């Protein structure tokens, strides 16, 4: 494929896509096979129902150059079950991820220090043993990275994480239905 090789690698950028889809079997597979079929890796993924139980939102993070990302968005839009694709990157949006991490906490000092860190990061201790604490941390990618960096020094025994989920910020000029401000990719936009 010509488009996969003729872009310099330094143009790679992380994109957060919010994909509204029909809530029906096989739709997630359609979205993911479309991406894997073009040889791209999904960095993060989360799926859940929206207010309308017939509609789900897939938040998907993918890295690529602008031509590939725009091709993927157009291809996604072409899927019969995809209602809307919004590229949140480059727009004003909030993102959150939930991570659970078990850290070693044996000495009194360690236990106190971890509790203090929990305060700072607004994390919760959700499980306790004599040798460890399990923390729940919620936040954007940067905050979670920072917290994990600090916790590393205590010794991380295990960690699991959800995918990132994201939402455009509401805006004074936004239409009353709160539609996303992101670049909505539709044929009309592609026209112009």
């Amino acid at each position, binding site marked *: 494929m010509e488009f996969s090789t003729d872009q310099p690698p330094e143009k790679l950028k992380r994109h957060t896509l919010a994909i509204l889809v029909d809530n029906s079997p096989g739709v997630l597979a359609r979205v993911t096979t479309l991406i894997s079929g073009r040889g791209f890796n999904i960095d993060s993924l989360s799926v859940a129902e929206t207010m309308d139980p017939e509609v789900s939102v897939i938040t998907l993070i993918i890295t690529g150059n602008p031509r590939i990302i725009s091709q993927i968005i157009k*291809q996604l839009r*072409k899927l019969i079950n995809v209602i809307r694709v919004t590229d949140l990157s480059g727009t004003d949006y909030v993102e959150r991820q939930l991570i659970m991490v078990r850290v070693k906490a044996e000495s009194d000092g360690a236990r106190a220090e971890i509790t203090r860190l929990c305060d700072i990061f607004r994390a919760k201790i959700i499980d306790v043993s004599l040798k460890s604490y399990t923390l729940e941390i919620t936040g954007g990618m940067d905050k979670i990275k920072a917290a994990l960096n600090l916790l590393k020094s205590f010794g991380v025994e295990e960690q699991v994480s959800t995918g990132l989920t994201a939402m455009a910020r509401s805006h004074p000029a936004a239409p009353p239905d709160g539609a996303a401000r992101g670049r909505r990719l539709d044929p009309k936009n592609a026209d112009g």
Partner: protein
Amino acid sequence: MTKMNGARILIECWKKEGVEVVFGYPGAATVEIHHALAESSLRFVLTRHEQAAVHAAEGYARSTGRPGVVLVTSGPGATNTITGLAGANMDSVPVLVFTGQVARMLIGNDAFQEVDIVGVSRPVTKHNYLVLSTHDLASTVKEAFYVATSGRPGAVLVDLPKDVIGGTAEFQYPKKISLKAYRPHLTPHPRQVSRAAALLAQAERPLIYAGGGIVSSGASEELVRLSELLNIPVTTTLMGLGGFPGTHPLFLGMLGMHGLYRANMAVQRADLILAAGARFDDRVTGALGRFAPEAAIVHIDVDTTSIHKILDVDVPLVADARQALLAILMALGEAPDYPKKAREKWLSQIEAWNREEPLRYKKDGPLIQPQAVVEEIYRATRGKAVIVTEVGQHQMWAAQHYLYERPRQFISSGGLGVMGFGLPACLGVQVARPEALVIDIAGDGSILMNIQELATVAQEGLPVKVAILNNQALGMVRQWQELFYGGRYAQTILSPSPDFVKLAEAFGIRGFLAEKPAEVEETVRLALAHEGPAVMDFRVDPAALVYPMVPAGKAIDEMMLSPRS
């Protein structure tokens, strides 16, 4: 409302969609549908392989524009349709494949003849469905036909569990389809239309590059009008052949890897290219960085994803090709101003290229030249036959040496390049158009990939003609071996060739053999005069190559040309 079983509902739906014929192959999972079919007014054509059923349906669809319908059983019946689905989808052909499936409670149990065909076919279809309730059957079928035939047409698969077929429901064919997001974009953006029209009127060396979208949107008439209005020459892709009359003075022939010299040269020197219903396939562009270096590009495509996919264009027009051309014609008015002198100069430059390098091949010698066979078929049919091809050298010769006057007169597997496509597609065309003279121009490699369809041809009494350009080799691959791999003919020799005359006779079909140039005319005459189906075996010069040829990685004006004798 009447209650009926799933099998009857399916057939009622087909009738509502105007289906007249179904191609397929029965099995345990679909036997009830076949019983209902036998009691209905619909015609069923029993091919001898499920892959052939899809190609036959493609032939039906490609020659009429109406959707082709296929019915096969679960498991192997379903997996055998994959090549056909992929080819139809790539060439934007509306084909619907209905597959049997094991009963719902057995799905996922590795049951006998079970396969997750919705999963398997996902990347090669426009869309697909697993019907989980008899109540949903009618609305799903309606939606499937709509998706297959609208926007950029394509292949759709509908998977039918045995108990959904056996179950009963009230039958009511829905009047409307409720698709949340699928809305094909057919009308062009007015601003882009006026930009396109202005560029077309200003350009000094314009060229129209027309593809299969012209044929599928029925835009041939508009294309001719636009070309004549502004005196713009037209080249087409393989899929676009017939979309512009082959004998028209503004027609340059096909472009691309085996395009005509004048067509490829024109692309490289044009200052404006209007790509209409074409998608800049790699077989057309050659080295992308050096494609049409002097041209501004206007691109009409109904598929948003085709725009800016391969190269950046100056004026994108997401629209149905016919509607876009109509809008451009409207914007231009009846007698637009354009640089008439510059265009005359441009056309005489193209004419000079053609004098310099016309389509040519070696005409003397003791062996039959394959190009001469195509030209004889053209002469004998007065250019009026529907030509179907397989894939390989013979396909390119059929594209170059037969001039197609009408859309849907040339039927070929383009994007996927499916060997074995021709014979079953040919029988599908003949089913759709019983009065037409339908000829499969084949190679000796491709024809063997679905040769069993001679049995279908015999059973249905279809008067198709098959012309095998028999060079006892996989000629196109061997051509690459000869030109680019130092003559290392690994695994491309198909010798000895079967006796195709006897093979045809074994199926109850007349066979004709031509071994010398002097026998070509008589063989074609006899086969065409014969009332029923006929197979012609032309033993052609194995050294014949397809020229011009653009080697991989070269710009399309860097052609290898037929050596001068």
